[in-house]
């Protein structure tokens, strides 16, 4: 139909849909007008009135039939048909409540799992920051060193970037920090952000009370002690006090004036955490233990974002920003050599939890697609069985004049009802699962993990799209069957299917094979992930994990300066080591596998000539005496740091094995020189390699310098102990308070817990994939059970005959189960081939497990075989109980 035709017909259609009575009335009027004319003409011809009427009626044909034909011809019945189909479909579904409930449940699980994962992808990766404007144009900014390693910007770098980036609408800083709140007589640790003054304006979030920061409040050193607090903080801590603005709150022992309250539902700009407060960059020294950094171009601590102007592509912006970075390299070679600046989409942000969860979520998207397909296959199977039951109904409808198109429409409508109900259920499921991801993560003290799913328009649209595709799939499967339907078919006796040989139900068998295949892939994936998790947890990271506790003492918040912090550190260690159960104690600036970043420096080594383009740069840590003893890192030669390696002694360093091999070609480096940050240090020891940033990393060069020679006021504290964690915590707290009542401890955990946290992506992915894999297996088992039950029910005659000819129940039991296993074998075979191809995609989530691990494949095979046997048992048992006398007589 072309448009002009629509112009004529649409008003007619709408009219006949919305005013059917009126249209009908007019039609009747027209027909009776015709009759009247005919009658009066007949009378004029000389008939009697009754005769005239009878003759006219005869000429017309059946009035009711014509009226119906007219209604059909109006064709405006598309909507009426739909309404009728819906009514009829609902009635059909209510007539078979068990079938409908099972089908809707399958679809709810399938669609719900998809909606939930989409909502996580949306809420964590694409639109991670609630209430923040135009997130599609936000990009994270960080440094890339030599094009490979990622580092942060310094504040002067950031200012230069902001000044020169004309393609950026806004640039802002949001650096996560922890803060000690002084409340009454105790101290508490919470999480906040150090932000640039334009922060709230740039993200388009306006405080509900008071104001955001003003230009200039991020300038100077500790010059603007002002704070914006989160809505939750305001409600919980200040009981929603409307007069809060202007009051003060001590943060890290410095009184801050509260100038604003952020709106409800705003959690800041850090994937994974809910921020409680925001302070301007000028307060950096109060919150950061490393001293005043705002004028130091070498101090890299800025986590920042830019929003591009509308219409500017990432590539264009990257080009400009690279040019800016190139200029910085030229102007400040000492600090910026080899460093360029890169842009990352929010979901690739290198400095928050987005990157950790990205591979997990990618795998999840694939997995839920599998689950959806399995669910569809199941519903398709159920519908096939249903359509067989309904063959009689379909034939009757065909016989009384329904077109095949009309039947197809009916089947699609029924599919639509199922998938719409499934989608509605799926939305509910996704809504309940919004915060599931957080619940899977280990609880941390003192700050809220926040990883919400977001069910927004895009997630809705995606799910509705899935709903339509599902409708088509599950509507067309039974339609394939009606295609073969002929009018006489149902009248003929149905010859029973045959269990033992290839049956006609190839679609059903195909669907089961498909399901088994997909379930097998999921099982293999789940097993690989769980195996990785197991291996990460049981692999030694190169230091002992179980008997070492790690914590920290909030001396910066208590206002300790460097000399006082040095005295405090020595006194604390001296007191701790004397206590029963504590074997040794030490400090280091950064805990391996933790969130903190190691220091990194360009190095030079006596006798090592770097190649022309090589700029050797190595990570290092600042460690106190006894660090290696406490963490149980073996020393191959030389000695540990001692108390005498202090700021007045000549610089020394301990290097790791890989560094020895790389820069000293494996020769003993003791007594040789290494240049660190421009100063020459003498190597005094060689330590074993260990894991530094992630469990998956390959051995890399690394070295240690004495904490006293590169001082940090607030390093982490390690205690090697024979006691349990709680009693260790109590001991340390008592000792710290004996020194100073105003100090608080940071979260205290074992190093094993630290390792477990490093395995977080594997934990989340393993848990989710095994849950969904189990679900898929269950669905496949239900599908197989359905097919086998149906086959047995259809072939009672054959089974009876076999029995009469001498087969015993055990034979029949074996027959049915072996038929089930043969179907499953097809699925497993396909699944193995597919799994070999796709498990590689698990990539970095796998840890020391080959994606083709034969043990894992064998395990999955065992699980699926036992499930198949289990699913076939009941139908097989029924088959073995066939009463030959009864079925053969029937």
């Amino acid at each position, binding site marked *: 139909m072309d448009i*002009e035709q629509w*112009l004529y017909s649409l008003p007619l259609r709408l009219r006949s849909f919305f005013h059917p009575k009126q249209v009908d009335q007019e*039609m009747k009027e027209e027909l009776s*007008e015709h009759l009247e004319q005919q009658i009066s003409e007949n009378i004029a011809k000389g008939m009697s009135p009754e005769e005239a009427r009878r003759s006219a009626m005869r000429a017309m044909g059946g009035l009711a039939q014509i009226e119906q034909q*007219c209604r059909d011809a109006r064709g405006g019945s598309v909507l009426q048909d739909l309404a009728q189909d819906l009514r009829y479909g609902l009635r059909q579904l209510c007539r078979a409540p068990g079938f409908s409930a099972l089908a809707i449940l399958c679809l709810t699980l399938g669609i719900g799992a998809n909606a939930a994962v989409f909502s996580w992808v949306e809420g964590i990766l694409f639109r991670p920051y609630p209430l923040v404007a135009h997130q599609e144009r936000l990009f994270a900014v960080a440094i890339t060193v030599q094009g490979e390693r990622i580092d942060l910007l310094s504040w002067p770098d950031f200012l230069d970037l902001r000044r020169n980036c004309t393609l950026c609408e806004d640039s802002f800083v949001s650096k996560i920090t922890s803060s000690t709140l002084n409340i009454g007589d105790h101290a508490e640790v919470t999480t906040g952000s150090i932000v640039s003054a334009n922060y709230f304006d740039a993200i388009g979030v306006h405080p509900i009370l008071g104001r955001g920061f003003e230009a200039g409040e991020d300038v100077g050193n500790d010059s603007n002690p002002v704070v914006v607090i989160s809505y939750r903080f305001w409600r919980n801590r200040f009981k929603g006090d409307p007069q809060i603005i202007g009051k003060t709150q001590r943060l890290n022992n410095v009184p801050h004036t509260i100038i604003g309250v952020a709106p409800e539902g705003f959690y800041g700009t850090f994937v994974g955490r809910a921020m409680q407060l925001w302070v301007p960059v000028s307060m950096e020294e109060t919150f950061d233990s490393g001293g005043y950094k705002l004028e130091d171009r070498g101090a890299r601590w800025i986590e920042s974002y830019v929003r591009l102007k509308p219409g500017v592509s990432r590539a264009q912006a990257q080009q400009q920003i690279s040019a800016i970075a190139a200029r910085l390299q030229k102007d400040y070679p000492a600090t910026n050599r080899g460093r360029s600046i890169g842009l990352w989409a929010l979901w690739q942000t290198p400095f928050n939890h987005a990157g950790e969860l990205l591979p997990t979520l990618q795998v999840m998207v694939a997995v839920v697609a599998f689950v959806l397909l399995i669910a569809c296959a199941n519903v398709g199977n159920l519908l096939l069985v249903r359509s067989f039951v309904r063959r009689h109904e379909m034939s009757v409808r065909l016989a009384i004049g329904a077109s095949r198109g009309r039947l197809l429409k009916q089947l699609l409508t029924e599919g639509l009802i199922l998938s719409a109900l499934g989608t509605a259920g799926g939305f509910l499921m996704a809504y309940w699962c919004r915060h599931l991801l957080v619940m899977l993560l280990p609880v941390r003290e003192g700050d809220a993990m926040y990883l919400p799913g977001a069910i927004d328009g895009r997630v809705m649209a995606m799910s509705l799209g899935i709903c339509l595709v599902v409708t088509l799939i599950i509507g067309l499967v039974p339609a394939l069957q009606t295609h073969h339907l002929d009018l006489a078919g149902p009248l003929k006796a149905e010859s029973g299917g045959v269990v033992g040989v290839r049956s006609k139900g190839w679609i059903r068998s195909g669907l089961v094979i498909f399901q088994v295949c997909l379930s097998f892939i999921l099982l293999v994936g789940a097993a690989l992930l769980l195996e990785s998790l197991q291996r990460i947890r049981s692999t030694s990271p190169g230091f002992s994990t179980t008997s070492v506790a790690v914590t920290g003492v909030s001396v910066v918040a208590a206002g300790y300066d460097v000399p006082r912090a040095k005295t405090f550190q020595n006194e604390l260690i001296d007191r701790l080591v004397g206590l029963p159960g504590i074997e040794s104690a030490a400090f280091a600036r950064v805990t391996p596998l933790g969130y903190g970043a190691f220091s990194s420096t360009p190095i030079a080594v006596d006798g090592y000539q770097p190649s022309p383009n090589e700029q050797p740069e190595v990570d290092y840590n600042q460690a106190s005496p006894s660090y290696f003893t406490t963490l149980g890192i073996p020393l191959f030669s030389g000695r540990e740091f001692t108390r005498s390696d202090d700021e007045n002694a000549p610089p020394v360093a301990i290097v790791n094995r890989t560094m020895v091999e790389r820069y000293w070609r494996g020769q003993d480096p003791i007594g040789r020189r290494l240049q660190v940050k421009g100063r020459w240090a003498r190597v005094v020891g060689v330590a074993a390699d260990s894991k530094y940033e992630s469990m998956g990393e390959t051995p890399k060069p690394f070295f240690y310098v004495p904490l006293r020679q590169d001082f940090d006021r607030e390093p982490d504290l390690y205690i090697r102990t024979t006691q349990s964690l709680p009693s260790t915590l109590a001991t340390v707290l008592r000792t710290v308070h004996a020194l100073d009542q105003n100090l608080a401890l940071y979260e205290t955990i074992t190093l094993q817990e630290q390792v477990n946290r490093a395995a977080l992506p594997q934990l989340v992915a393993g848990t989710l994939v095994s849950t969904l894999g189990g679900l898929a297996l269950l669905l496949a088992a239900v599908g197989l059970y359905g097919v086998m039950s149906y086959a047995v029910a259809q072939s009672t005659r054959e089974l009876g005959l076999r029995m009469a000819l001498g087969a015993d129940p055990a034979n029949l039991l074996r027959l049915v189960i072996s038929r089930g296993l043969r179907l499953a074998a097809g699925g497993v075979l396909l699944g193995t081939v597919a799994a070999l191809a796709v498990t590689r995609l698990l990539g970095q989530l796998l840890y020391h497990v080959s994606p083709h691990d034969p043990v894992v494949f064998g395990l999955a095979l065992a699980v699926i075989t036992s499930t198949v046997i289990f699913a076939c048992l009941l139908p097989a048992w029924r088959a073995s109980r066939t009463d030959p006398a009864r079925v053969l007589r029937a």
Partner: protein
Amino acid sequence: MSKPADLVQGTLDMLILKILALQALNGWAISQRLKQISSDVLGVSDGSLYPALQKLEHRGWIRAQWKASENNRRAKFYSLTRLGRKQLEKETANWNRVSAAISGIVQLKEA
């Protein structure tokens, strides 16, 4: 009642369009004209006329309006639309082509 064969069905549409191309008429008048023209050969029952009219109206080929009839009663008058005129031309051409072909075959048989 069985559906008229396609040929007859199509022919009926064309006849109605042809009749309405000359003047706007109501249902009764169309049926009278049909009887006159086809001399009852096609055997169009009054019954099949009205569904056909509904169909043509929905295809946008004819347009209906309520007017007073000659004996001053309310009646539905049908007239041809622009689309209908185009359709009539197309069907007439089609008809001529098919009937020429068929009569050619018929004569061939006789020869």
